[in-house]
């Protein structure tokens, strides 16, 4: 079975160029012009479209097990594929928590045959309670590479030091493949009364705020602990200008830190909360336009390694609670690429770095994802009409939830095909799995 992509602009080792791509089995077998096409091949006319390495999301919530009303691994993966993703990392804040080999096995079983590769991240502490270490060695041996208590950060510095020290020993189990500790930086003692960014808007709206210092204090702590232990710390969803600055200086000092920013943190500000619509509630919160500018700069100059979605579905009725009682989180899969392509003003190659190459490396799947369109690479790719406009509608999304903060917005850039391991999971904009 072969697929022939004809006439598209590929993002390859020489930058963006027009070339045909032949896929056979799970691999790209030829890239070039005037390729011989096997008679049995399906031809996809890619004229006018770009062919990207499949996107990788290192931060998503698929809600299974435990909250299947909001999302399942199948519907989540479907939405991801529609957004051009060929691999997503599922956060462990499920019910039960992904903190043991048996839950990892369950998730991997549920992830078989879905529309993109799903990699479970595992919790650093049992039940994400910050009290006991999870069996990180066993989990690493099963292939888990990202550990995180996402949803909250590890509050106790002694516990965090322990996690870091233990993690540095695990590379002996993984044959040198790095173990990444992904931290949701948030000192809850400073933030847990708040529901939005602490700033002018929270003051006007009469809402308790989550101050920037809640994020940056933990970032500074973790930089110091990473220096001490040599562990690889990954900062999740950096939301503040000061946070970007901390990463920049940590990297300048030679520390192996990585960081992600979400699409909503570079496209929306706390002013969006003015109407008290809980769809704009998210942790960390939407911050100011200065923070947005700093995140954009960090994405442009490489301070921030990756764009993540922090796709966080919530059942529709949760939008009908008051802002302070509503759960935080937003859908992200289907809007991320359009926003990155058209809001950041960055060249396509840089977007590919941020949404595919670097996140694949961080997730430890660089052998098969995040590889440029080149002969011999795995056929994990997306074909995108970058100029097609479409209107965001939560109800039209694959997710079981509808909580997109971009409802009604007209976006540019639409994924037409997603190919995972050589198989078409999005065909003419429609998910096949």
């Amino acid at each position, binding site marked *: 079975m072969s697929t022939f992509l004809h006439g598209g602009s590929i993002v390859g080792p020489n930058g963006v160029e027009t070339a045909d791509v032949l896929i056979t089995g799970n691999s790209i077998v030829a890239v070039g012009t005037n390729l011989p096409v096997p008679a049995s091949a399906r031809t996809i006319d890619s004229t006018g479209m770009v062919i990207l390495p499949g996107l990788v999301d290192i931060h998503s919530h698929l809600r299974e097990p435990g909250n299947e009303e909001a999302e399942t691994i199948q519907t989540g993966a479907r939405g991801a594929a529609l957004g051009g993703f060929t691999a997503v990392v599922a956060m462990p804040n499920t019910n039960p928590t992904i903190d043991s080999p048996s839950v990892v096995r369950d998730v991997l079983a549920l992830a078989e045959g879905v529309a993109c590769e799903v990699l479970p991240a595992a919790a650093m502490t049992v039940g994400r309670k910050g009290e006991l270490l999870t069996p990180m060695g066993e989990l690493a041996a099963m292939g888990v590479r990202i550990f995180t208590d996402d949803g909250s950060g590890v509050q106790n510095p002694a516990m965090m030091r322990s996690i870091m020290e233990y993690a540095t020993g695990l590379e002996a189990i993984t044959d040198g493949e790095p173990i990444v500790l992904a931290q949701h930086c948030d000192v809850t003692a400073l933030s847990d009364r708040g529901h939005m960014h602490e*700033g002018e808007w929270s*003051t006007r709206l009469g809402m308790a705020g989550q101050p920037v210092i809640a994020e940056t204090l933990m970032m500074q702590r973790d930089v110091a602990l990473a220096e001490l232990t040599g562990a690889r710390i990954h900062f999740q969803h950096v939301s503040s200008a000061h946070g970007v600055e901390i990463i920049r200086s940590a990297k300048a000092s030679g520390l192996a830190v990585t960081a992600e920013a979400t699409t909503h943190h570079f496209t929306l500000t706390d002013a969006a909360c003015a109407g008290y619509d809980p769809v704009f509630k998210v942790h960390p919160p939407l911050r100011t336009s200065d923070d947005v500018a700093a995140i954009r700069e960090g994405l442009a100059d490489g301070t921030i390694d990756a764009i993540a979605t922090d796709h966080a579905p919530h059942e529709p009725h949760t939008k009908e609670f008051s802002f302070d009682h509503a759960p935080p989180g937003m859908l992200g899969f289907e809007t991320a690429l359009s926003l990155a392509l058209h809001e950041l003003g960055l060249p396509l190659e840089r977007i590919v770095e941020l949404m595919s190459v670097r996140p694949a490396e961080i997730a430890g799947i660089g052998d098969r994802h995040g590889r440029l369109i080149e002969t011999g690479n795995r056929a994990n790719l997306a074909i995108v009409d970058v100029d097609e406009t479409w209107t965001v509608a939560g109800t039209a999304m694959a997710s079981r939830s509808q909580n997109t903060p971009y409802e009604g917005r007209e976006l540019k850039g639409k994924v037409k095909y997603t190919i995972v391991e050589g198989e078409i999971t999005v065909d003419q904009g429609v998910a096949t799995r």
Partner: protein
Amino acid sequence: MNDLLTIEDLGADGINEIMLTADSMAEVSARPIPKVPALRGKTVASMFFEDSTRTRTSFETAAKRLSADVLNFSASSSSVNKGESLRDTVETIEAMGVDAIIVRHRSSGAPRQVAQWAEAPVINAGDGWHAHPTQSLLDAYTIRAEGRDFEGLNIAIVGDVSHSRVARSNIEAFSVLGANVTLVAPPTLLPPHVEALGATVSHSLDAVLAETDVLYLLRMQHERMDQALVPSLGEYHRTFGLTPERAKQLPSNALIMHPGPMNRGIEISPEVIDDPRVRVLNQVANGVVVRMAVLYLVVGSNGGVI
């Protein structure tokens, strides 16, 4: 836009119009039979998701003086505690047929959400730390009733501004009417980025008293101590309370106001409560007439817009 959610919705013209209408309501309230048929046949739902006997009673009295029927709903007696969404609750009440919904909620912004779901106009009776527009209207009306011109009037709002919906709405109302508003509180009781509220700030009550035309004391909650925002209520009283000594520094024609209920010995010394400058009971009486005006303008206008 039929709703009264914030003072910002009204602007100076809207506030003045409500105060003019309230003059008529004051006349009605002074009659031997203080009741007119203005809202006969109208039903006003009073939805209090947070207890407030004073505000609820004030609205209810106002509605009854206008001959409206009042449908009472309180969270304690409802299924809200069983996890019913705010929207379900509002739609259930509205299905019973109401001409206006008065909403009190401990969550900031809840009345705005209700307004999005409800056909009937919504009147905010206080939401979280956000807004309490009818309180501000009655406070402005009380000051106006003393013959004071807001232009250039110095109003000091003292106390826990951070957690106060009254403060937020009053700053807006007094400022838009032309007064100079000064917030007096320790930094821990002022919200972050307090400049967003558009008022002057002082950390010393003694420094502002002599220049103050209206001293507006906010209610101090006991739990602020547990949150380490003030060391003790005793220290608060000594530093920011209206003591007899401070009352002497206040101009003789100044007004002393408080949204009630007052904590004697905290915001105000017991000796000062009977000071002739205290207008707390006027505020309560004016609360009814101002809420009559709001109900009349909101409900009386409903449905006939061409």
